C-alpha cells in the first residue's frame, strides 16, 4: 500500500479524536442581476436565485463529508452586500429583504446567510443609509441573516460618522432582543479592511469583484494542532512553529481536496481556502489551549501575543503551501464565547479586553463574540469599534468587532447563547466616556500607509 499504516491512522485520529472538520463551505451568490422595477420584484428574484443556486448545497456537502470521512460542520451562503440593492428603497423594504434572505436560507437548509451588509468606510450612500436604519429590526426579526458593515479601510481611513452611529445601532439591536440576551448582535460584525471572499460568519459577503457564484471553504482544527503540540512537550519554539506548520499543511490539503470536489459537483468555481483556526466549545478544540500548551499558565498572561503571533504565522505558512488559492481571513480566530480556554482565561482574570485588543493586532480578526453589560453607552461601543478599526487600518489587516451588549447583565455574569455561539462571560468596558470624540464626527484620514502608489 503506498500510503503508510501510520498515515491512515493519523488521519482517522485527527477526525475522530481531535475534532478535525471542514468548518464551513460557503456558496457566494451575486445578487446584482436580481435588480427589478420594484423592490418586491427584486425580492422574488433574490429568493429564486438563492434557492435555485443552493438547491443541492447541503446534500452535496453531506455526500462529500460521508465519502471522505471528514465532517463538514456548516453549510452557508453569502450574497452581494444588500445595500447595493436598496438604493431608493424604504426601511420596510430593507427589513423585508432580510426576511427574504432568512426564508431562502431556511428553505435551502443552511444555518446562516451573510451579506446584509454595507460598505460605508468612506461615506454612506442612500442604500447604505436605508440598510443601517433597518439593521436593528432586520437582525432581531430574522433567525439566520448575518450582517456586516465596513466602517474603515487602510485606503479610506475611518468613517467616524458611521462608527458613531453603529454604537446606537448595536444598542438598539440588543434592546430588541433583550429576551434573548441581545443575541441579534451575535450576527453582526463591524469591519476594517473586510475581505470579499470570507467564508466565515457573521462577516461573510459576496464581494462585487467576485464571479456570479463561487465556493469558498474554511477548514479548521485547533484540536489537531493542540494534540500535535502535546506530543512534543520539550520542542523549542522554532520546532513548535514547524509542528504547527506541518499540521496546518495536512489540514488544509484535506480541506482543499474536499472543497474542489464540492465545487465540481455544484458546478461553480472554487474560490479560496480560508486558513483559519476557528475554535468551538468542544473539548480541546480551543485556540487558547494551544497558546497555553506553548507554555502559558493561562491565556492572556505576558507572552500571549508573542505565542499567538507565532501560531498565526505558522498556520499561514503551512496552509499557503497546501492550497493553490488562499484567501478569506486566514489566521486564528479568538472569539471569547466559542472557546472554552478563552472563557476560562477571562473568568480567572488572566485575559482582559485590553489584552484581547492587543491580540487582534497579530491575529486574523478582532474582538469577537464579546459580551458586555447592556447598560454600556453607545459612545463607548463606538470608541471600542474605533480603536479596533485603527488597529486594522494602521496594520493593513482585517479587524472586526462583534460585541454583544446583554440587557440586564453585569460584568462577571455568564451568558448562555446556546449552540455554536456558546457562552460568554460579561466583560466590562472602560467606565470613562468617549462621547465627545464621537460627537465630533467626520472621517479619520487614511494613514500614510495607504500612499503606496
Amino acid at each position: 500500500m503506498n500510503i503508510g499504516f501510520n498515515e491512515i491512522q493519523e488521519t482517522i485520529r485527527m477526525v475522530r479524536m481531535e475534532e478535525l472538520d471542514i468548518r464551513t463551505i460557503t456558496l457566494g451568490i451575486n445578487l446584482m442581476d436580481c435588480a427589478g422595477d420594484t423592490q418586491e420584484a427584486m425580492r422574488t428574484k433574490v429568493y429564486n436565485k438563492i434557492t435555485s443556486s443552493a438547491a443541492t448545497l447541503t446534500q452535496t456537502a453531506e455526500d462529500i463529508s460521508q465519502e471522505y470521512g471528514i465532517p463538514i460542520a456548516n453549510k452557508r451562503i453569502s450574497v452581494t452586500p444588500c445595500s447595493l440593492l436598496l438604493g431608493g428603497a424604504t426601511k420596510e423594504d430593507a427589513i423585508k429583504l432580510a426576511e427574504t434572505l432568512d426564508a431562502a436560507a431556511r428553505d435551502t437548509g443552511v444555518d446562516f446567510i451573510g451579506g446584509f451588509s454595507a460598505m460605508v468606510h468612506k461615506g454612506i450612500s442612500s442604500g447604505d443609509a436605508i440598510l443601517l436604519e433597518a439593521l436593528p429590526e432586520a437582525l432581531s426579526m430574522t433567525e439566520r441573516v448575518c450582517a456586516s458593515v465596513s466602517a474603515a479601510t487602510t485606503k479610506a481611513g475611518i468613517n467616524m460618522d458611521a462608527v458613531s452611529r453603529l454604537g446606537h445601532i448595536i444598542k438598539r439591536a440588543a434592546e430588541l432582543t433583550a429576551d434573548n440576551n441581545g443575541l441579534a448582535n451575535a450576527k453582526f460584525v463591524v469591519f476594517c479592511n473586510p475581505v470579499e471572499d470570507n467564508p466565515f460568519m457573521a462577516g461573510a459577503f459576496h464581494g462585487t469583484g467576485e464571479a456570479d457564484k463561487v465556493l469558498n471553504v474554511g477548514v479548521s482544527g485547533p484540536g489537531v494542532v493542540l494534540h500535535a503540540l502535546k506530543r512534543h512537550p520539550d520542542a523549542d519554539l522554532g520546532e513548535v512553529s514547524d509542528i504547527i506548520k506541518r499540521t496546518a499543511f495536512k489540514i488544509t490539503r484535506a480541506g482543499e481536496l474536499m472543497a474542489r470536489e464540492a465545487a465540481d459537483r455544484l458546478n461553480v468555481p472554487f474560490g479560496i481556502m480560508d486558513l483559519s483556526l476557528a475554535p468551538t466549545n468542544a473539548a480541546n478544540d480551543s485556540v487558547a489551549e494551544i497558546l497555553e500548551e506553548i507554555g502559558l499558565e493561562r491565556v492572556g498572561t505576558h507572552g500571549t501575543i508573542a505565542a499567538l503571533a507565532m501560531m498565526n504565522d505558522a498556520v499561514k505558512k503551512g496552509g499557503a503551501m497546501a492550497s493553490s488559492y488562499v484567501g478569506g481571513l486566514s489566521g486564528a480566530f479568538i472569539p471569547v464565547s466559542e472557546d472554552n480556554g478563552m472563557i476560562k482565561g477571562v473568568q480567572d482574570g488572566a485575559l482582559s479586553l485590553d489584552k484581547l485588543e492587543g491580540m487582534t493586532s497579530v491575529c486574523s480578526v478582532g474582538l469577537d463574540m464579546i459580551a458586555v453589560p447592556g447598560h454600556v453607552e453607545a459612545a463607548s461601543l463606538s470608541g471600542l469599534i474605533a480603536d479596533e478599526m485603527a488597529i486594522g487600518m494602521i496594520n493593513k489587516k482585517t479587524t472586526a468587532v462583534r460585541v454583544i451588549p446583554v440587557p440586564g447583565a453585569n460584568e462577571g455574569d455568564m451568558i448562555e447563547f446556546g449552540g455554536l455561539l456558546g457562552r460568554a462571560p460579561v466583560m466590562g468596558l472602560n467606565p470613562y466616556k468617549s462621547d465627545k470624540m464621537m460627537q465630533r464626527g467626520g472621517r479619520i484620514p487614511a494613514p500614510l500607509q495607504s500612499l503606496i502608489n
Partner: protein
Amino acid sequence: MESNRAVISVVGKDQVGIIADVTAVLKEHQINVLDISQTILQDFFTMMMLVDLSRTASMQEIEAALEQTAANLGLTIHIQREDLFKHMHRI
C-alpha cells in the same frame, strides 16, 4: 484524476473471523481488495484495506453494510476515499 479507490480501516477487539466477515460484505458489493495490511496493536486488531470501488453502485450503500458488520462484531469500520490520504500525506 478521479480515483475509484478507497481505504477501509477496521479497529477493535481481536476475534475470530473479522477479515472473513468484512471481505464477505465487500464480495457482496463487487469490491475488489487491492492491498491489505493487518496487525495487532496492544490487543487491538487494526486493519487497513485498499479497495477498488469501480464496480460498485454507491459508497453510501457500502458504508451502511459495513456499519452493520461493525455493529455485529463490536468494531469500528471507516471507509474513506483514497485521495484524501494521498492529499494529506503526499506532495
